């Protein structure tokens, strides 16, 4: 009842005051109820999905975006009804709370839950009620123990032949080949474009694949790798060149005779997609180098290659590290390209395709979760680096 103090006017009689306040309470309860009811009806409507597609799409957009806005408005309105002391205390949580709740539900808690699941067998932890622990502890422990495998999944992850292949591909081909190629091509285009007359055009064209999905890129490159029987005209660019040079046409990404080097045909796709990203960051960094420094070096007789390696590369080393880490994190989780191009066959499996296959096709959630945890552990150094950099900031 503390919020009576806030705007209570002195002139009103006690009864009038009571009525006003009762109305206020009723309103405070009613408005959220109405809002929730409307949102719930919208939810039921969308879950049923009976209307035509266009209508559903439109309602989905209005309901989704409008609903979130209404929720904020309602909660803020409620908090502002409270006395000032409580408003200032609670309002931050209206602003920050939803984001933190979603982060907790979607990323933070799942990390712990996945870790927990990874210690169990095929079906994960048994779904037994906790009350059993108190009614018959022995049975509870026995049920738990029946599913518990400890580090068994992790041992399997590091010894399984397919997983070893996936690790080899991720570490050697994706981190070892795709990442440096992306950085080198990005740097090359950035440096060349900087001195070219058609800088903007060149940059836009190299950047363009960033807007294309991996599935789309998979189709584009599948078309380049397309193979036709010997003798008929090759409609794929690569095989047309190979045949033109007197070679044998091959389905290159599926060409197991050259395994594991067929991975390179998938690597090319990702380099093609990601170079634009590297180029944009390098281009911005290069423009940040003061012109005088470069001019001074040229006057001192340095040639262009010396200028590049002695001045430009050291000046943008921070950006090179950022780009390299981002691409490494990205390639670590590479999934779509491999899944669409080869389905992980022909020796092209990677960690994320193994994760998908184990978790969602073989339905072995314990094993799949162990693979996900391995992915998480792999990015921890970057996480620590980010946190350390954040710790150096003055703002907090």
């Amino acid at each position, binding site marked *: 009842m503390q919020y009576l103090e806030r705007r209570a006017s002195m002139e009103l009689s006690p009864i009038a005051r009571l009525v006003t306040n009762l109305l206020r309470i009723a309103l405070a309860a009613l408005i959220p109820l109405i809002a929730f009811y409307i949102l719930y009806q919208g939810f039921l409507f*969308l*879950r049923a*999905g009976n209307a035509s*597609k266009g209508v559903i*799409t439109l309602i989905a*957009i209005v309901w*989704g*975006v409008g609903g979130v806005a209404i929720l904020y408005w309602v909660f803020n309105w409620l908090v*502002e009804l409270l006395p000032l002391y409580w408003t200032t205390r609670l*309002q931050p949580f209206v602003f*920050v709370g*939803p*984001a933190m709740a*979603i982060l907790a539900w*979607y*990323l933070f*808690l*799942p990390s712990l*839950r996945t870790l927990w*699941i990874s210690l169990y067998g095929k079906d*994960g932890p048994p779904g037994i009620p906790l009350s059993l622990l108190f009614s018959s502890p022995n049975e509870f422990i026995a049920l738990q123990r029946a599913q518990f495998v400890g580090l068994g999944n992790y041992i399997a992850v590091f010894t399984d032949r397919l997983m070893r292949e996936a690790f080899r591909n991720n570490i050697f081909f994706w981190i070892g080949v795709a990442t440096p190629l992306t950085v080198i091509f990005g740097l*090359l*285009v950035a440096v*060349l474009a900087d*001195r070219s007359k058609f800088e903007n055009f*060149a940059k836009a*064209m*190299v950047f*363009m694949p960033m807007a*294309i*999905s*991996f*599935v*789309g890129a998979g*189709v*584009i490159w599948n*078309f380049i790798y397309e193979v036709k029987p010997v003798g008929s*005209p090759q*409609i794929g*660019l690569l095989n047309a060149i190979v045949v033109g040079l007197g070679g044998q046409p091959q389905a290159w990404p599926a060409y197991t005779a050259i395994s594991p080097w067929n991975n390179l045909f998938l690597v090319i796709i990702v380099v*093609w997609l990601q*170079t634009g990203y590297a180029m944009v*960051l390098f281009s*911005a960094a290069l423009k940040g180098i003061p012109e005088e420094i470069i001019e001074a070096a040229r006057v001192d007789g340095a040639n262009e290659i010396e200028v590049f390696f002695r001045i430009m590369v050291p000046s943008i080393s921070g950006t090179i590290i*950022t*780009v390299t880490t981002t691409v490494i*994190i990205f390639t670590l*989780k590479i999934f779509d390209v491999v*899944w*669409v191009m080869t389905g992980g066959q022909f020796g092209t499996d990677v960690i*994320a395709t193994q*994760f998908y296959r184990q978790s*969602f096709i073989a339905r072995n959630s314990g094993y799949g979760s162990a693979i*996900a945890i391995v*992915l998480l552990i792999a*990015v921890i150094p970057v*996480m620590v680096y980010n*946190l350390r950099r*954040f710790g150096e900031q003055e703002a*907090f």
Partner: protein
Amino acid sequence: MKSSRAQRIRGLLLVNGVLLLLVLIWLIPVVGLLVSSFRDRFDIQTTPWWAILPHRKWEVVEKIDPRAQGLDASGPMTINGITATFEELRAGVTTPEGQRLQWIGNRRIGTIEVQDKVWTVSWKFTLDNYKQVLQGKSFVYTREDGTVVTIPGDNFYGALLNSIAVALPSTLIPILIAAFAAYGFAWMNFPGRRLMFILVVALLVVPLQIALVPILRDYAKLNLNGTFLAIWLAHTGFGLPLATYLLFNYISTLPRETLESAFIDGASHFTVFTRLILPLSVPALASFAIFQFLWVWNDYLVALIFLGGDRNFQVVTMRLAAIVGDRGQDWHLLTAGAFVTMVLPLIVFFSLQRYFVRGLLAGSIKG
């Protein structure tokens, strides 16, 4: 002086030449796809897409009936001054005049064609592929032996609508939530503020694979699997760390005086946020919006898991991947379908590239 000028020109040529070569390499895959998507279904399968460029091709100028000439296909034959066996003629024999003789058909009833090499272009463009992909129109043709073959089209139109229904809220919801949070972190004081922001920074690089199994279980309990709400929330959750981080970096640098004078005028946090901060943050909001829109539109894994196998809810990437899996040789559908999935992101990308670049530069690490 003269040599240095020559050197400079050579340098310029080298720079522009190499750059042009790189740009061509980057463009050719997309051009090939685009050109093919407008070509006739039969043409795509039998001639490469660069046949639209002028090229030399054998064309029949005369047909000779070997039986009328009294030729015996079992031994060497002499036609137009060329002596060759059936096998050689089958593969094609070039005459000194630059013509080619080729035996078409089998040994007993075949004919010999005299061919000339002529310049030609294969310019037969059509919108049929797009009609088949978008309207589900089937392609019907009759084989030589009289059997009628129907190649079903595909329904990308529904998938396009689904993609829009997934992508727009999945872009706008995290922006709204993150903007509130960023404002809270930047302009409000509360216990746990630092710890919460540390959590945001830490979650920036967490791979989303970690969340899929537990979230799928939650959704199964809530009966949410296969609904749009499920995928909006998932994309919101996975995009939120970056969104909060980017928007915080922007909002915290807005001039303090503007806000303080608003507070002195008696404005509440909510009013300041909606009336002042949101309009001022449009560049940052746009940066993240493009980022998230492209990410969601092009996403395959999250859609695959949370929208499941229900064909009615498939987004464009799932539809396209399904064609690759089921009918990977139907290039008339694949090329047009791939281009349909690319049009919207490409438009967004080229019209708002400036904001996208800004977003990339502001926060380059996403989980």
